[in-house]
């Protein structure tokens, strides 16, 4: 019908539109993904968010006694919660509770009850032991079991045995609670080193090692 037969066009109209729409969609998606990046704010490691480090003093975490330095006589076979307290750049005391995963569990058992796999040289005299109080499963704060058999997590009833390195004795947690090396200096309990194994929420040893380096550099 048409008198002028079109010279075969290099690209059909349909193809052109498809390519144009495809490009727009691709560019749009990429830009949206980059916008998603802004949803994730930058993390700054301030002193109140640093993990317990060498030299930190352990203080009470319970509401009524918060910030008071823990004495040996405060401890028993009932869990006592503690925060590590360090210093900021100006030398002021900072309770490191900006990171809620820093909460610690302290116990004092009669000598001889603490056994392997507890790292005994990281306890005070084989009697006082400190663990991360954060369940390695989903990060709830672990409490004493109401049955009197160790510690129980209120979230999905994970169970730990604080006399045996807080190894998992029931429920879903994948790892024991991390033990924190401590020592007695005067009448204060003082952190001797980083957690002996990776604490919640770390998932890989490499990340935990990297984080320890980062903290050491920041403090140096």
């Amino acid at each position, binding site marked *: 019908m048409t008198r002028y037969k079109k010279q075969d066009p290099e690209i059909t109209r349909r193809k052109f539109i498809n390519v144009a729409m495809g490009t727009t969609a691709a560019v749009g998606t990429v830009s949206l993904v980059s916008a*998603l*990046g802004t*949803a*994730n*704010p930058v*993390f700054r490691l301030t002193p109140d968010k640093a993990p317990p480090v060498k030299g930190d003093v352990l203080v009470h*975490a*319970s*509401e009524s006694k918060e910030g008071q330095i823990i004495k040996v006589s405060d401890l028993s076979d009932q869990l006592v*919660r503690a925060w590590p307290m360090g210093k900021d750049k100006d030398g002021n005391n900072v309770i490191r*509770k900006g990171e*809620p995963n820093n*909460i610690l569990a302290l116990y004092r058992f009669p000598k001889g009850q603490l056994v392997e796999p507890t790292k005994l040289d990281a306890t005070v005299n084989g009697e006082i032991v400190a663990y991360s*109080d954060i369940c390695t*499963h*989903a*990060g*709830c*704060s*672990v*409490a004493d079991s*109401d*049955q009197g*058999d160790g510690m*129980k*997590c*209120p*979230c*999905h*009833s*994970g*169970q730990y045995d604080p006399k045996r390195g807080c190894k*998992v*004795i*029931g*429920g*879903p*947690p*994948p*790892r024991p609670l991390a033990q924190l090396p401590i020592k007695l200096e005067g009448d204060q309990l003082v952190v001797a080193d980083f957690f002996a194994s990776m604490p919640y*929420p770390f*998932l*890989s040893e490499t990340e935990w090692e990297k984080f320890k380096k980062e903290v050491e550099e920041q403090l140096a």
Partner: protein
Amino acid sequence: MNQWLDDRLHISRLNDKFLRKAFPVHHSFFLGEITLFSLIVLILTGILLALSYEPSNSLVVNTFDPGTVTKPNLVPAAYHSALKINAMPFGDMLRRVHHWMANIMVAAAVIHMMRIYFTGAFKKPREINWWIGMLLLIFSALTAVTGYILPYDNYAYNTVKVVYAITGSIPWVGEWVAQAAFAGKFPGAGIIPRIYGYHIMLLPGILLALTGAHMLLMIKQKHTQPQYAKRVAYKKIVGVPFMTQQTPIMLVLALLLTGLVMLFAAFIPVHPVEFFGPPSTTPINNIKPDWYLLWVFGALAIIPSFEWHLFGGLIGAEFVGALVLPGIVMALMFAVPMLDRTTEHQYYAENPTNHPVRLAAGVAFFAMMIVLSVAGYKPELISSGLLTTGNANTILWILTLLVPAVSYFAVIGIVRGIRALREADERESLAHAHADD
């Protein structure tokens, strides 16, 4: 005035198309409507709450208990505003109605879905609406969970902590996704504003859009007809028109529902923020999610711990229990219309007992959900002495598999038995009829 409007807007066409839609008269068809009315009440009460709620987790002085000048009593602003809402005239009531209605909405949606499933209403051509319904169910649950977090008391804090951890358990990308979704490393300074945005903008928007699509498809495809319609007028649409017969029924239903929920709310408190107190490191004993997520919670409680490393990612019990398992359950539910191979269009709601396998599978499915939910009470079962720490997981696992299996065969058996009896009866009465001749 009608004429004036009609000239300009062609209202009469709207009337023909939508307002005369026939509604089958059967009580089971009200379940979807109840879900819809709950959504409307939720939006209305939600707007009222949003007028007084302060979406921020920065610390402010608790004006109800200011502490001392040197040691002020600081609580998150969101928690403080929930206390203030409670102190307003009818404020606590408003929170309770909103919260109860959220439960009613999910419950109505679940029962509505059971109706659709057991009567075969999901079959061709209504598969798309089944899928939209599934999305509605999922997004309602998400909306309710985000709402739960808003008062930011210790309960909410512990809930969001677990939600964050579950998000973080996705292999490879989990931590990044969790930080992006919850505004930074938990508990980020922006976590409440972020969740507030989800709860009152993003998720209700999605819910409204899905609900609109659900309704339009329903109008386009028409309800399945209850069995009586077959007898009244075969292959004709039977029912009362939306305008004006169905509207008063709906109004009565909506008002009755709201009234009942208000009555409920007046007597049964919900989520007492004062009781739980502001976020703290003291754990809450036996913390539980809302009932419709209890099965996931139960599965998490009885899954043994394991970790499996794969290409630098970590696949753990938490990921499997809280995301993979519900994912499989959801996928099964999504697949329901595809398991049916009829090519005919479905006109009539089916009698569930005519499809024993479907009925039995559905019953077994719900039985499993219920057993898993009971497993969520594992700590209580242990402290009550019914189970011991040693045998709890084994027994609960056996029940999780056994109870559904037993209910499956029991249902099939009962249905077959009833049918055999009925057929025997018919044969007998036929024989007698002949004898009478």
